[in-house]
């Protein structure tokens, strides 16, 4: 089907040079085959996918290599020749469904457009066909959906609409560029299942781009691993998983949270360092929780007692109030990690904001170290804030780009007037060292740092005031898997050294498995199940939790291997 030989792609850099994003890739996708292209950001996987559609961003250019589709050489095609290929012979399922549909055009018309463009149907017929295609993509009540605008559909439905667009003209090849990374795991699973059965029925070939080896192993016949624009390894999915040859593949597998199976532990020297402040954190494998622990810590660091949060909805929106958090109770003991898991809209982030008292609960109580802080305000609340700090999801958005790293890390100290300028500067150096960044980053701006480095800076800032509780709101979801693993390691080590208590918010059960002592599962504002991590993950009681656990990518592949 698709044959790529010696593909090289370069991007013009502002300095006038060329950055070689793809350096000589060979790749074949046979008819009816699903090939996964796996790698981290910067590996050239997305660039390769876009080169296959001749859709490189401005400044990008194919500098060498040939591209054949069904034996036809595409390298010589002009821009307008490509219009006949895109959509007709190669379909694209883009990355983020929430922004990939035109917001001002009805969903059905966007599907029909493909048929109109390629002259496969006239307007009215194309509209009727669009409804069928939406149904084929697994959308219920497709007639009504076709008349709606994208913002009226959930992310999962929008991705299905995009799949309908991709398959509309019956292409022989579909390029799926991280098709579900922006979606909740259960939605991700259903959509990938559906896409899989669609292509099996029609014999369409799929080039699946993903950063997640778990997804790749679940869905692909063959896996191709890319590192810095070069193919380092390729082979059948099962073989790559069980017998990786290249060190980079091994690193990816080791880092992939979905493929790891147990809680992270701290190496010994780190544990002894932290022994004075909190040995609880220096845990332990599965099920090895010391029984004395619960008894010793009588007062939880954070306690939510039947908290409820309602938001008023704008008038005319039907129901007047939205209940975001509905009677949640939880307690986080000192030195522990309580993970709050749920899909988008489950209320987990609102719960975190309630814990940080950034929101005031509509009902219920928030207790911090045994003190009721539900009604705290003004100066009192500000003083309390020294004790609980937060690390946000996106290190790109949560650091002021005009600040140097030193400014960022010392800002909490300045805000509370802690220490003299030189003491603060010393503290900044210690903090940066603590999060394993080189000392010279202090003078640099956040913009010059990588995502992982930025998140380390955000963690250093959270630690500046020696807080008791750190709320981690999806702290690794914006990062590459190998960076993810490093940050999780760092968090576990810091917890052990400083006796930190974590409230860990995540949608990713695979990540939670690696760090949590206690797990609470949220759905529609309610805590549906909670308890020790190993109980929840290995023996979930609630149907919803079971569904979440089953949706962890990589699981299917692992089970397949076990039964084989």
């Amino acid at each position, binding site marked *: 089907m698709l044959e790529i030989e010696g593909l090289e792609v370069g991007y013009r850099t502002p300095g006038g040079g060329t950055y070689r994003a793809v350096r000589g890739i060979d790749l074949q996708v046979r008819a009816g085959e699903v090939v996964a292209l796996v790698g981290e950001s910067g590996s050239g996987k997305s660039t390769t996918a876009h080169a296959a*559609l001749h*859709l490189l961003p401005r400044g990008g250019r194919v500098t060498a290599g040939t591209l054949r589709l069904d034996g036809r050489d595409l390298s010589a095609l002009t821009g*307008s020749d*490509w*219009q*006949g*290929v*895109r*959509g*007709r012979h190669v*379909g*694209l399922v*883009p*990355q*983020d469904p929430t*922004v*990939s*549909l*035109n*917001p*001002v*055009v009805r969903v059905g018309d*966007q599907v029909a*457009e*493909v048929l109109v*463009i*390629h002259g496969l149907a006239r307007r009215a017929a194309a509209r009727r066909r669009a409804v069928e295609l939406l149904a084929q993509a697994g959308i219920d009540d497709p007639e009504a959906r076709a*008349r709606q*605008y994208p*913002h009226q559909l959930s992310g999962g439905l929008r991705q299905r609409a*995009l799949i309908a*667009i*991709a398959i509309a*003209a019956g292409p022989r090849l579909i390029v799926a560029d991280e098709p579900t990374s922006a979606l909740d795991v259960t939605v991700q699973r259903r959509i990938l299942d559906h896409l899989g059965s669609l292509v099996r029925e029609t014999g369409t070939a799929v080039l699946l781009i993903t950063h997640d080896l778990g997804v790749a192993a679940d869905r692909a016949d063959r896996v191709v691993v890319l590192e810095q624009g070069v193919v380092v390894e390729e082979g059948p999915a099962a073989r790559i998983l069980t017998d990786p040859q290249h060190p980079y593949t091994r690193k990816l597998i080791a880092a992939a949270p979905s493929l790891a199976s147990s809680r992270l532990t701290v190496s010994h020297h780190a544990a002894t360092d932290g022994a004075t402040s909190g040995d609880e954190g220096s845990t332990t494998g599965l099920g090895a929780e010391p029984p004395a622990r619960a008894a010793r810590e009588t007062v939880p660091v954070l306690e939510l007692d039947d908290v409820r949060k309602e938001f008023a909805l*704008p*008038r*005319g929106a039907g129901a007047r109030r939205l209940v975001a958090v509905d009677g949640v109770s939880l307690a986080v003991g000192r030195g522990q990690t309580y993970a709050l898991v749920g899909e988008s809209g489950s209320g987990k982030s609102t719960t975190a904001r309630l814990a940080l008292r950034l929101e005031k609960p509509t009902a219920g109580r928030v207790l911090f170290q045994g003190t009721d802080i539900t009604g705290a305000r003004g100066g009192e609340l500000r003083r309390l804030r020294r004790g609980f700090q937060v690390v946000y999801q996106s290190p790109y958005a949560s650091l002021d780009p005009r600040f140097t790293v030193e400014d960022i890390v010392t800002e909490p100290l300045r805000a509370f007037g802690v220490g003299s300028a030189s003491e603060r500067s010393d503290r900044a150096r210690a903090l940066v060292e603590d999060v394993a960044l080189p000392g010279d980053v202090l003078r640099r701006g956040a913009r010059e740092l990588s995502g992982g480095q930025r998140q380390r800076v955000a963690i250093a800032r959270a630690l500046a005031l020696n807080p008791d509780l750190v709320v981690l709101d999806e702290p690794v979801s914006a990062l590459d898997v190998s960076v993810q693993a490093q940050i999780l390691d760092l968090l576990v080590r810091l917890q052990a050294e400083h006796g930190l208590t974590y409230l860990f918010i995540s949608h990713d059960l695979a990540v939670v498995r690696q760090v949590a002592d206690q797990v609470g599962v949220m759905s529609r504002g309610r805590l549906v199940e909670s308890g020790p991590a190993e109980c929840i993950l290995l023996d979930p009681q609630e149907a919803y939790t079971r569904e979440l656990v089953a949706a962890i990518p990589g699981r299917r592949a692992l089970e397949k291997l076990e039964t084989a």
Partner: protein
Amino acid sequence: MARYILRRVGQGVFVLWATFTIAFFVLYLLPSDPAALIAAGGGGEVDQIDPALLEELRAQHGLDRPVIVQYGDALWQAVRGDFGASYLSGAPATSLVAQALPETLKLTGVALALAVAGGALLAVASVFPRARALRQALSALPPLGVALPTFFVGLLLLQWLSFRVPVFPAIGNEGAISLVLPAVTLAVPAGAQLAQVLSRSLRGTLGEPYVETAWAKGAGRGRVFLAHALRNAAIPAFTVLGIMVGGLLGGAVVTETVFSRVGLGRLTVQSVNQQDVPVVLAIVVFSALVFVVVTLVVDLVYPLLDPRIESSGITESRRSTAVAA
């Protein structure tokens, strides 16, 4: 929907009242003596008027009453559409405004059409061509147009197309041809402003993932630009359009002066110069009314352009029919 409009009209009424009140007291604080202005009737020496006559005029026009009573009276009259008589000509202020209005409406109407057409064309032209140099050259025009003062553009046009090559008349209100130069003068900054916003927004939307989806469908350049990028880019530009309509009224003051045209702008300049308080007050309130109406219209049209925005109270069915229309 009806409730939404009612609320917005209520807000509009408040804006008009506030405008009237502020304008009334600012004008009242002017150091001049209205009675003297009335007596002088637009000409003559204010100093030489008989004090007895002034007293009589004050009593006649109620100017000897406490300011708050004058304000209440003026407000009540204004609500009934009467802003009093001009100090200069004695004609009702509202009828002076009404007389001047048609010429100004013609001018601003034509200017608005030119600005929208020219601005949109320039915005698309500065993004669409493949040739980079052409795009850059065209992108430089809008900032230039915004930077040029209205009177300067007017004088340049007069110099070239009226005095040096007499194509268009330099002054006056005679026929459609006399409208060309002033309308172009007025349209240049407005159109440039629109082009600037639209081309920036167009460049933004062209980088949006849904535009990539359109390319991936196999859509051609024209379809991607017009059906996908431009439709979305037009939404922020539409907001600018609303502000622009108000700005055109202000621009008319300068343009009508430069081209010696009769109209609201000229009337404004005249009335301000002569401190003809009733007329100034009528013009100020009228301008506020234009702003209020335009803003309301923009807000009502917005949901038709962008289905994500709901004017509160508009129901689902109402909205779908509106978009289809």
